[in-house]
């Protein structure tokens, strides 16, 4: 190993391509988070309704995502849905679908948690002022719940970004896949390419996720005071 091999990162359009791959990762996470949040808000509100059957269904939905690994879900949807339901979806759409549904389940749980963690007497003193249920949600519960939700939601976003690394395994061309292509081409010229490329991707992920973690912790701390 005369040369370090790190040059492989800067050869041709390699750096550009890797960053482009990262963008795919970020795009998939972003769309999923937005869709998941919208769905999840509804789901969270539904989960506070005292209806045994509804609660059971929504709980089951959440547990299915908690018990079965996301990678398995990606596979099931990607390869299983077509023969079953006769629909054709690409790897990207599969990932967005799976991540959004997963996000909805988790956000739903965060919303429920936030609403239920609201001290009971907040609700009562709002009632004692004569506010209607709708007004209590609008002025008292939801504004406070949103604050409580923030750290958990951002945390979930971090997890989603990390989990998007799996979409390479269902053929989506994102940062890891592009890394593999670069390694393959560089085999002769840069035998140690895999060390540098995977190391670099490792750092890329860190650079995306770490700021999110920090923000989430900020909110958490602020909320505690």
């Amino acid at each position, binding site marked *: 190993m005369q040369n370090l091999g790190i040059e492989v990162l800067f*050869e*041709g*359009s*390699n750096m550009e*391509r890797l960053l482009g791959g990262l963008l795919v990762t970020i795009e998939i996470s972003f769309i999923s988070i937005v869709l998941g949040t919208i769905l999840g808000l509804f789901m969270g509100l539904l989960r506070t309704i005292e209806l045994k059957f509804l609660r059971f269904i929504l709980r089951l939905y959440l547990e299915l995502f908690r018990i079965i690994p996301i990678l398995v879900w990606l596979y099931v949807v*990607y*390869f299983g*849905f*077509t*023969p079953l339901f*006769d629909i*054709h*979806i*690409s790897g990207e759409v599969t990932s967005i679908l799976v991540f959004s549904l997963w996000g909805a389940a988790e956000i739903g749980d965060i919303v429920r948690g936030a609403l239920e963690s609201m001290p009971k007497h907040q609700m009562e003193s709002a009632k004692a002022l004569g506010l209607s249920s709708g007004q209590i949600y609008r002025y008292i519960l939801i504004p406070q719940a949103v604050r409580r939700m923030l750290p958990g939601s951002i945390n979930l976003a971090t997890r989603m970004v990390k989990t998007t690394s799996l979409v390479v*395994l269902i*053929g989506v*061309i994102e940062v890891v*896949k592009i890394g*593999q*292509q*670069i*390694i*393959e*081409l560089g*085999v*002769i010229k840069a*035998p140690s390419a*895999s060390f540098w490329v995977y190391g670099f991707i490792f750092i890329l992920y860190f650079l995306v996720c770490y700021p999110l973690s920090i923000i989430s912790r900020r909110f958490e701390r602020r909320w505690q005071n």
Partner: protein
Amino acid sequence: GGSESNGESKSKFNSIEQIKKNGKIKIGVFADKPPFGYVDSDGKNQGFDVYIAKRFTKDLLGDESKVEFVLVDAASRVAYLESNKVDIIMANFTVTDERKEKVDFANPYMKLSFGIVSPDSAPITSIDQLKEKGQRLIVAKGTTAETYFTKEYPEIELLKFDQYTEIFAALKDGRGAAIANDNTELIAWAKSNPGFTVSIPAFGGQDTIAPAVAKGNTELLNWINTELDTLGKEQFIHQAYKETLNEVYGEGYTDELVVEGGKLE
């Protein structure tokens, strides 16, 4: 056979008319199997399969840029066809009976058999060597080589990867004693990787490689067969060999690999 599709699966593939209407055809190729299918450092698809696929596109849609290459891995090639994620698979797809049950193969454009590549420092010259304890044979998941060894030599321990990138990296890192795969693949790789030799060049009979379409897509299948016939007249596959494979294999292998006009001699 239109009778077996029973109408219910009619939407499982695109008709030629549909493809023309869309103005693009989706062809599944490898991204990591030079010189047959790979992505160059500018991110463009290149290779023998790709070269032919582009020509198909040009003849079908009038412009070779109307192809959308879908990068597939070996194990999921059938699934890509079944779920209509591609119209044609041209990812060095070896024709086997099992696969014939799931997809429809057109006529071949290439032939090959299995080979084994191993490091010069510890060459594997007979399959029996692999039966020894602690010797692992590296294969790619979903390849004919995997099926062959699983069936014929269940006692050999296999180390299975999704990607071609990974099997070669694994051999280099000393994770297994040898790689078993299509010999074409291995010859190409060994040429550019000093220290490794194709120590068993051919075994397991001769196989062919052909474009595949979704089960029942007779229309597209027929079109491909006609196209191959036409291309045969201008010796197009030979040209493809010259453009993409020559550099790796040299002239010497032309007759070993090329199938012209869709017909074996």
